[in-house]
């Protein structure tokens, strides 16, 4: 011990993800190693430490806080201040009182190596115990009902700890100190195996239920397995019959199914793995990683990922999964336990009711899943692992935001189909897990429940509610209701502006950042002809064609006709955006129906580009045109001509659909959102040679000054594109070559247009965003073409698609509330 004179005091504030992750015991352990005294506690801002000791020991202590932080902790900053007063004679952990606030909740985490060692050790009291966890791993968001995050507010409340578990829980030296879901075979949740009829299934010589379930899977059965964030359906991935049965039961015809493999070595047999992909697979988030399938992979059921060149793999992330996979020789299909687009089951009774037609057996347990969490999905593109779906393991980790001084707290409601919501305040954004399609009533209810939970968990009281400009989004309605209830102002945000702003925020662009050129490509979003328009105008009387109001022409309050966007070039900062170029609008024949039936987009595109009569006169012999002619072309053309439920949209997604349909991909229907585009990309990616021949289309020339005569944006038309596609088909070019040429052409067009616009308007930074940029070929193609000359920002932490809309809405609403500083 040093002399009393050398003892200094320091108060240390640690911010970041430092609660519920074993940070206080970590502090306690280091303090004891270094013979420091003082205390550590959790409060509303994070962790607060008072430490006393010699100068050198204190410095070592502060360094070790971050350097040796527990696996799930994320230290964002450490602030120190000198502290006077007498040093206490020991170092203690101060218990959180009932009134203390926590700063949130961390994502669920995959089983840590130490817990894995426990369940594999026959001498350990947790040998083969499927609910083993510690402060470094295990369920979090999925089991929490309220704050403070304490055992009593989780679904572990029902299980009283045995003395052995209690001792671990109370010992700061133990890695299960304050691990809220701590459990063991004596006191914790219990597993069982039942048949589709609810009767217990015999183990048939298996060691336990997990091995019995593995045996069933080996024999071709479909087993429903209760996991962390919901039920899964599992079957042998090499068993064509089982996979086909699974698809039929789920009524899911085309969408790829996720796989689980025992370990990286097993994945490697099926797919190529780059180091960042391996890191993602083995991360605590344990997402599904979309990997490029090996040509020499051992056989898998062909219906796992039809039309794809990728396979979605994840690794075991609970002890149950580890034990199950150890009993199986190959990968399994592990897909959400639901029928078609409904949310996956989380409750035992619901699973029995909804899944008994599909599953032959249920591997159940008695720990409730409180919050539904789908598996997250990521994909490597242009050198970074990028989020496709952000859910289990990733949410609700806060995203640091550029600190907007004086910004209000914003609740942003997000979009419709891949909805998330976002709470933004104090320089951070909490984006919810992927919630899903809000038209589904169960998902809608889930969204409302999650909103309430998040507001409690993060003690969030919004000052503003931000919604999409689309008046009929369920998310918009929910936001309007919430705002009305509390008398809060509503900020309406253009869909594609939100896409751009989300990427700006993710990249830490400051509030008064100079404008970027935002390239936002997706299926559809509400646009606006008036540039720089923050909100919907007040409703006023207008006549328009009504379809459902008794066929009356002029009797209702209607919105003014607003354009539908989806292929946009915007000059944007956080507060405003201006459209400078866009895809030429093409009618969506039958509105949303056009998304489900790609032939409609092919017809519309051909009619706009060439005229249907000319196209059929010149190319009528092509089999694809004959196929199209067999569709109800006459009424569809009439719908376009008369504007009957055929709203024009500058949609990039529908251009992909149309080109896919021209190549026979999903011609009649797409069974899941984006299927045609995904399969078109896969087809293009199958072309390995780089010299597939470009279409001889000259780079686009932009007007040298300003916009077009009418002040409107530049329109990118697709006449030459369609001419080239049809010429290729007429020459019997292989569809894969056409697909590759299309991707290259589009990347050229986008890059040329962006380059010209950015130069004209003096912009240095370009943002790529919108669901179409989940297309790796397009993203990498555009990045490659622009990277040398511009700073190109692309999404990674948040999805390129609509999962990021809530984040964009939040930062836009926050920025608008702050007056711009003069430039």
């Amino acid at each position, binding site marked *: 011990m040093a002399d009393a004179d050398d003892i200094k005091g320091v108060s240390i504030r640690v911010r970041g993800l430092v609660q519920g992750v074993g940070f206080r015991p970590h502090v306690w352990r280091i303090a004891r190693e270094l013979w420091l005294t003082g205390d550590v506690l959790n409060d509303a801002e994070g962790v607060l430490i008072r430490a006393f000791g010699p100068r050198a020991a204190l410095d070592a202590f502060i360094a070790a806080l971050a350097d040796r932080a527990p696996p799930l902790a994320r230290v964002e900053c450490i602030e120190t201040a000198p502290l006077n007063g007498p040093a206490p004679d020991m170092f203690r952990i101060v218990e959180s009182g009932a009134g203390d606030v926590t700063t949130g909740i961390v994502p669920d985490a995959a089983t840590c190596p130490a817990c894995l060692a426990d369940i594999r050790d026959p001498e350990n009291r947790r040998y083969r115990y499927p609910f083993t966890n510690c402060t470094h791993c295990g369920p979090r968001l999925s089991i929490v009902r309220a704050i403070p995050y304490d055992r009593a507010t989780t679904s572990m409340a029902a299980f009283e700890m045995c003395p052995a578990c209690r001792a671990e829980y109370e010992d700061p030296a133990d890695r299960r100190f304050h691990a809220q879901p701590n459990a063991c075979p004596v006191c914790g949740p219990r597993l069982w195996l039942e048949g589709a009829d609810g009767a217990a299934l015999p183990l048939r010589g298996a060691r336990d239920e997990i091995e019995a379930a593995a045996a069933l899977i080996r024999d071709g059965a479909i087993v429903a397995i209760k996991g962390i964030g919901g039920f899964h359906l599992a079957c042998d991935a090499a068993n064509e019959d089982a996979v086909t049965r699974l698809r039929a039961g789920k009524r899911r015809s085309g969408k790829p199914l996720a796989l689980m493999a025992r370990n990286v070595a097993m994945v490697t047999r099926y797919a190529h793995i780059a180091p960042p992909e391996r890191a993602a697979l083995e991360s605590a988030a344990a997402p599904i990683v979309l990997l490029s399938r090996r040509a020499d992979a051992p056989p898998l059921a062909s219906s796992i990922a039809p039309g794809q060149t990728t396979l979605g793999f994840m690794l075991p992330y609970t002890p149950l999964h580890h034990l199950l996979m150890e009993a199986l020789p190959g990968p399994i299909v592990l897909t959400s336990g639901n029928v078609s687009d409904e949310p996956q089951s989380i409750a035992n009774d619901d699973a029995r009711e909804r899944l008994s037609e599909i599953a032959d057996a249920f591997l159940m347990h008695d720990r409730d899943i409180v919050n539904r969490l789908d598996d997250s999905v990521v994909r490597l593109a242009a050198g970074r692992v990028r989020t496709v779906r952000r859910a289990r393991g990733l949410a609700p980790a806060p995203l640091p935001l550029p600190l907007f001084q004086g910004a209000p707290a914003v609740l942003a409601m997000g979009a419709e189909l891949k909805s998330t919501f976002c709470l933004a305040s104090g320089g951070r954004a909490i984006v919810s897990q992927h919630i899903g399609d809000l038209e589904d009533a169960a998902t809608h209810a889930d969204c409302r429940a999650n909103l309430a939970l998040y507001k409690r968990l993060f003690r969030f009281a919004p000052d503003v509610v931000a919604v999409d400009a689309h008046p009929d989004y369920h998310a918009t309605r929910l936001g309007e209701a919430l705002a009305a209830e509390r008398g809060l102002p509503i900020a309406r945000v253009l869909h594609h502006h939100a896409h751009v702003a989300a990427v700006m925020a993710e990249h830490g662009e400051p509030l008064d950042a100079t404008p970027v050129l935002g390239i936002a490509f997706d299926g559809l979003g509400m646009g606006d002809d008036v540039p720089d328009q923050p909100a919907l105008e007040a409703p006023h009387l207008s006549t328009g064609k009504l379809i459902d109001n008794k*066929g009356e022409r002029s009797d209702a309050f209607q919105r003014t006709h607003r354009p539908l966007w989806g292929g946009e070039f915007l000059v944007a900062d956080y507060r405003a955006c201006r459209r400078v170029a866009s895809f030429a609008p093409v009618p969506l*024949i039958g509105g949303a129906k056009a998304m489900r039936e790609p032939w409609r987009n092919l017809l519309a595109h051909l009619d706009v580009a060439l005229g249907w009569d000319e196209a059929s006169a010149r190319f009528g012999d092509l089999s694809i045109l004959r196929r199209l002619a067999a569709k109800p072309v006459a009424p569809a053309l009439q719908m376009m001509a008369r504007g009957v439920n055929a709203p024009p949209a500058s949609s990039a997604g529908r251009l992909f659909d149309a080109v896919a349909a021209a190549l026979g991909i999903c011609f009649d229907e797409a069974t899941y959102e984006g299927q045609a585009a995904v399969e078109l990309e896969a087809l293009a990616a199958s072309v390995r040679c780089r010299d597939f021949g470009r279409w001889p289309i000259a780079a686009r020339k932009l007007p040298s000054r300003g916009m077009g005569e009418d002040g409107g944006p530049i329109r990118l038309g697709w006449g030459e594109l369609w001419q080239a596609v049809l010429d290729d088909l007429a020459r019997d070019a292989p569809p894969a070559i056409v697909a590759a040429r299309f991707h290259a052409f589009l990347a050229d067009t986008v890059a040329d247009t962006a380059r010209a616009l950015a130069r004209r308007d003096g912009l240095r930074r370009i943002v790529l965003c919108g669901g179409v940029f989940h297309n790796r070929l397009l993203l990498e193609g555009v990045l490659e073409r622009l990277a040398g000359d511009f700073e190109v920002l692309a999404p990674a932490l948040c999805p390129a698609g609509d999962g990021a809309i809530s984040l964009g809405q939040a930062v836009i609403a926050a920025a608008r509330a702050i007056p711009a500083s003069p430039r």
Partner: protein
Amino acid sequence: MIHGAGGRATAELIRTLFRRHLDNSLLAQGNDQAAFAVKAGRMVMTTDAHVIAPLFFPGGDIGSLAVHGTINDVAMAGARPLYLSAAFVLEEGFPLADLDRIVASMAAASRAAGVPIVTGDTKVVEKGKGDGVFITTTGIGVVPDGVEISGDRARPGDMVLLSGSIGDHGIAVLSKRENLTFETEILSDSAALHTLVADMVAAVPGIRVLRDPTRGGLGATLNEIAQQSRVGIRLDEAAIPIKPDVSAACELLGLDPLYIANEGKLIAIAPPDKAQLLLAAMRAHPLARDAAIIGEAMQDPHAFVQMRTRFGGNRMVDWLAGDPLPRIC
């Protein structure tokens, strides 16, 4: 039509035209108002302005529609319609032959329904200031004792009944107006529902809600009722009658039949123990042979309307802010 308002020749032409079709003792008195005696009791009164393109459509025209629409609005209170009035705004240049057809159709509809048009008015506006013809009809009726029907009376557990197939009128009008041809011609369901209502009220006086799902269709109307009554409503998609040709047209057009207008259908909400009785009474009437129980009211502070789909999922059935616009990206 040759002259503006007040032209003597026009006025005379119109008078003879109306007289010829709409002949009844009250109108024949030639006064500026109709005078009649009513028994004491609860009266209802409603008015509706009718504008439609095209004026003539398969299964009806603006004339029959103006009669049916107002009779139905009266009947949806459980009332027996007594009298109608009609006011016409005609655009200069409107063909008299068309006017003749429309008034004849109104007269036929009124006669068939047994509800006379007892007073009326006509104005002619300059060319370009109207759209052919606008017709406003007003109706009054009397509610039988003990009947209390209102949109705010649905209770959790009540059953929701529908008198027949949806979407016929809207699709018929749309396909005529936009010159869309389908395999078979789809006819409007335009009809007067008061005799059906009379049979229903006689069978089940305790009906809680009646409403005709006209503009905005079944979806909008059920949302209105849910809001008024502060209940949730759960529909069963498989139970909702729809004709195959209407369904096929909706498929092609990408329109949701839930939001398409009807002019000869009604929704009834009744206590659960009376639902079968009511259904039987409806099916016994020629206008409701395809009646069905399509859902039920539930406890729900949000007053959401949901629908159990054919695939077993549950879908939110929201009201729309205007034209249906695609939501999904």
